[in-house]
C-alpha cells in the first residue's frame, strides 16, 4: 500500500489500482469544524487537479481536488449525515472518495509522507 500527499493537503492511499482520497489531519485542523461535505457522483471521470468534492466549515467552503485522474468508484456517503467525521478521523472513517487510477505514473508526482512532513514544517 502506497501513501502519497498533495500540496493542497489531500492524501492518496493506493491499494491495487484504486486510490482512496481524503484530507490530511493538518487540513482538517486548518478548516475547523466541518459542517457540510459535497461528494462527486459515482461513475464520474475526473482529471488530475480537478475539483472533485467540497468541504465546508462554519467559516468557509474549500475544494477537494482529485490528486490523480480516473473514475470515481465509491464515495463516503456517511459524511453527508456526519460531516464532523472529517475532523475526528480524517485518515480513516473521514475519507472522501475512491478513484480507479487511470495512470499510476501520476503518483510519482505526489509527495511521500517524509516529503509532506517536511512541507508542513515550511508552513509554520
Amino acid at each position: 500500500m502506497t501513501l502519497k500527499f498533495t500540496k493542497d493537503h489531500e492524501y492518496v492511499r493506493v491499494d491495487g489500482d484504486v486510490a482512496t482520497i481524503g484530507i490530511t489531519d493538518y487540513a482538517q485542523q486548518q478548516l475547523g469544524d466541518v459542517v457540510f461535505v459535497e461528494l462527486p457522483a459515482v461513475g464520474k471521470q475526473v482529471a488530475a487537479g480537478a475539483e472533485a468534492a467540497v468541504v465546508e466549515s462554519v467559516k468557509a467552503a474549500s475544494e477537494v481536488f482529485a490528486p490523480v485522474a480516473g473514475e470515481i468508484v465509491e464515495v463516503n456517503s456517511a459524511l453527508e449525515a456526519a460531516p464532523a467525521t472529517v475532523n475526528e478521523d480524517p485518515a480513516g472513517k473521514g475519507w472522501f472518495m475512491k478513484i480507479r487510477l487511470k495512470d499510476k505514473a501520476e503518483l510519482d508526482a505526489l509527495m511521500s509522507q517524509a516529503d509532506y512532513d517536511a512541507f508542513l514544517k515550511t508552513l509554520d
Partner: protein
Amino acid sequence: MASPAADAPLLATPLAERHRALGARMVPFAGYDMPVQYPTGILTEHQWTRASAGLFDVSHMGQAFLVPDDGRHETAAAALEALCPADMLNLKPAQQRYSQFLAEDGGILDDFMTTRTGEGPEGSLYLVVNAGCKEADYAHLNAKLPANVKLRRADDLALIALQGPKAEAVLAAHIPDISSLAFMTSRRATIAGAQAQISRSGYTGEDGFEISIAADRAGDLWDLLLTDERVKPIGLGARDSLRLEAGLCLYGHDIDVTTSPVEAALVWSMQKRRREGGGFPGADRIQRELQNGASRQRVGFSFEGRAPAREGAEVRAEGRRIGVVTSGGFGPTVNAPVAMGYVETAFARPGVKVEIIVRDKPLAATVAAMPFAPHHYKR
C-alpha cells in the same frame, strides 16, 4: 469597510498575548491581530455561548465620547442627531441605543451603539463603532460636529463582552446587584479592582454585558472572568455565527454605503420623531422609502438542504436574479444553513420560495423571518 494597507503592521488589543497563551488561532481583522477561534473550535464556542457564558475580546472596536462644551445632554444629542436617524434627545440617563451614521444619500457609513452616560461637565454620549470604520467615523465626526461639541477618542479603553444565559450569574459573583441592570442600559461598577462602564447588550442574541475598562486593567478582568468555570473564551468565528443566527447586521457585508436603513430592515432603530421630522443625512430618500417602500429589503433565508450559501451567492426566482446573499454560513444552534441578504421587495415576505446559486447549482431556499435563533434578552 476601510481596509488598512496590507503591509501596515497589525495592531494588538491589550489581550493579544492572553489569546496566544490560550492557544487561539490569530488572524488579521480590521487591522488588528485577533483570535478567530480557540483550540475547541467555532462550533463548541458557539454552543457554549448559547448554553453558558462566552467571553469576547472586542477591544478592537472604537470607543469615543461626544463632549459638549456646556455639559448638557441636549447639546451632544442634537449634534449626533444631525448625523444619524435615531432619537438621541430623548435618551434617558444610562440608556443605550443602536443607530447608523448616514451619508448624504442615506447610505450607511457605519452602525454604532451610543449610551447617555452622564450629566454636568462630564456629560456626554459614549459611542462604540466598528473597528474597520473607526478612523473614517472619527474623521467624519470631526468634520461635522459643531464647534461646541468635541469628539474625545478613548483609545485607552478596552472592551470585553460576556454573553450567554449564565452571564448574569457570572457577573453577579463580582457585582451582586448587576441583575437589576436592564437590557440596553449601562452603569458604572467596580470589578477586578477597577472602575468599568457596563452595558447590558451584545452581538449574540443572548443576554449579556459589554464591559468597557481601562486598557491596562483589561487583563486582570479577563483573567478574573475566566477563572469561572461557566466562562470560556470565544473568538471572532463564533461571534460571526452567533450574530448571523441572531439576524444582526455585519457592517461591510449586510449594510454599507449603498444600503439605506429602510432597505436594511432597520426601521425599528429610527424612532417616530426622527422618521417624521427628518433632519438627518439622506432624510429625503429615507422618508420616500418609508412612504413608498424601498426597492429591496434585507431578509433571512432558510434552506431545505445542508449546503451553506455564502456571501455573494445569487438569489433567483421566476427565472431571474432577484437578489444576493450578504452573509451566510452554518448555524450551529439551528443545526442548518442560515443566510441573510437582499431581495426585491415583492419577494421580501417569509415563506417565499427562492433558489440560491451555489457552485452553479440552485439550492432550494425560503425567505425566512429573523432571528433564526430566538433572542434571549433580559428586558
